């Protein structure tokens, strides 16, 4: 017995340290499980009817029960969201570079952009339906419209905030505007750009689901709105859960892309 106890002693601090790291890694899962547990208990204690607030167990049961439509509609929503988001990335990058190019363009277009961004995108869906009919196209366009603003603003900001000393050094050497943009402006705005993708992708989900809810026969938004009309509240929550999962997955992907592409920005800010 005592031999075993002695053997264990030196290992103990190491084990507690590595368990500390493991705890941090486990924390997101533990907290999620905790949330579901609190939710489940709340429903039991308050004796909530499933038509108002279904317990997580009911929601998971609904996911299993309706797996085929949920899977199909999840893929549909993922598709409209990513297509809309992809257009937003291309257009946002292009417009951001254009706006950041000159102070006049920046000053002229910025108020317009703010005004445009202030318009609730759900109000645009009927117009998009008039133009394109119901279906995937309005969902893609709504996802695009809602998510491209943060990309534009971030890219333009990255370009507009070049240090004046850097610009002086290069201009004194005879650099043209194009040189300064290519050598400094664009690389420098990349951390802003990749950072904005995380915000943009979650907004894109908001856009596509709003449009699917109002004007589509497919997608999670449509599925949830028809489930709601049939008082199938567990299925509504199942849809919300799937959206949350897709959102987290895409966010994680964008965060990974950001880290891969502009790791230098994180490391360089650490040294200050």
């Amino acid at each position: 017995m005592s031999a075993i106890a002695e053997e264990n002693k030196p290992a103990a601090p190491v084990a507690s340290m590595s368990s500390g790291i493991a705890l941090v890694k486990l924390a997101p899962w533990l907290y999620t499980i905790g949330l579901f547990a609190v939710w489940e208990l709340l429903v039991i204690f308050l004796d909530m009817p499933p038509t108002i607030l279904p317990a997580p167990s009911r929601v998971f049961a609904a996911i299993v029960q309706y797996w085929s439509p949920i899977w199909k509609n999840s893929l549909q929503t993922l598709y409209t969201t990513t297509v809309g988001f992809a257009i937003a990335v291309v257009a946002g990058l292009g417009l951001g570079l254009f706006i950041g190019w000159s102070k006049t363009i920046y000053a002229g277009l910025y108020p317009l952009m703010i005004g445009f961004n202030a318009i609730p995108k759900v109000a645009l869906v009927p117009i998009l339906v008039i133009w394109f009919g119901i279906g995937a196209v309005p969902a893609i366009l709504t996802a695009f419209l809602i998510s491209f603003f943060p990309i534009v603003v971030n890219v333009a900001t990255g370009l507009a905030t070049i240090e004046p000393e850097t610009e002086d050094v290069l201009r004194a050497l005879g650099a043209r505007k194009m040189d300064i943009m290519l050598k400094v402006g664009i690389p420098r705005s990349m951390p802003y750009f990749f950072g904005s993708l995380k915000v943009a992708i979650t907004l894109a989900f908001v856009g596509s689901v709003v449009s699917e809810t109002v004007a589509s026969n497919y997608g999670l938004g449509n599925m949830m709105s028809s489930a709601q009309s049939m008082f199938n509240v567990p299925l509504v929550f199942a849809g919300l859960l799937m959206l949350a999962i897709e959102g987290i997955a895409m966010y994680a992907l964008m965060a990974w892309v950001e880290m891969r592409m502009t790791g230098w920005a994180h490391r360089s800010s650490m040294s200050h």
Partner: protein
Amino acid sequence: MHHLVSIEDVDMRYGGAAGTLAVSGLNMKVGKGEFAAVVGPSGCGKSTLMKLVTGLHLPQRGAVLVAGKLVTEPVSIVGMAFQNPTMLPWRTTLDNILLPLEIVEKHRHRLRAHKKEYVEKAEHLLEIVGLKGFGSKFPWQLSGGMQQRANLCRALIHEPELLMLDEPFGALDAFTREELWCVIRDLHAAQGVTIVLVTHDLREATFLADRIFVMSARPGRVLKEHVVPFERPRDLEVMYEKGFNDMVHELHGEIAKARVAA
């Protein structure tokens, strides 16, 4: 003596006719190969002087001549270094140093074909400033003093005839600053480049320069010109000699008077 920089009765006003007059009636001549320092109270238009000589600003009155030619556009025979090293964090130190070559008309078309030759030159410069082997490091992996050394290399890579330094050592600690004084002193001696150093540090000016211009408060003009008599090569020990301290003291008095006059 042939003058590399010649500023003749220059006025420079910012922001239109009612704007602030930064310099007025400015006269200054710096000979080829000379090391000039410009000192003065803060806001005396030292940065304006930098921009006038490099052609980033054009004066409203008077003339700025560099290498005998009237400055009407940015002058690419000039290298610049500021207090903020402004290294680009996504480039290695070596690539940062090579940056001017991608810009300057004379080199940008040759760079790709003669890359090896230019890299050797950059590595030679790195060795001179004591950064041998650090070319592959990123700027944020270097200390402030090392970044400023790399900054000097970048200012020198295109072999400028004139080096303009705007308080390049202002943000460094005293020992690092003295080390870099010696680096710049040796660069000046070895490369025969003309240097104009804008600084607040009177000991720095006296230690490094052949000629010191004292400027007035805004609108800036040259109040007095001193020729620094100490023999070259100068050792850091010169700063503890009586003559050196007297000169620093005299400069200090002149700037204090210029501040009061403002």
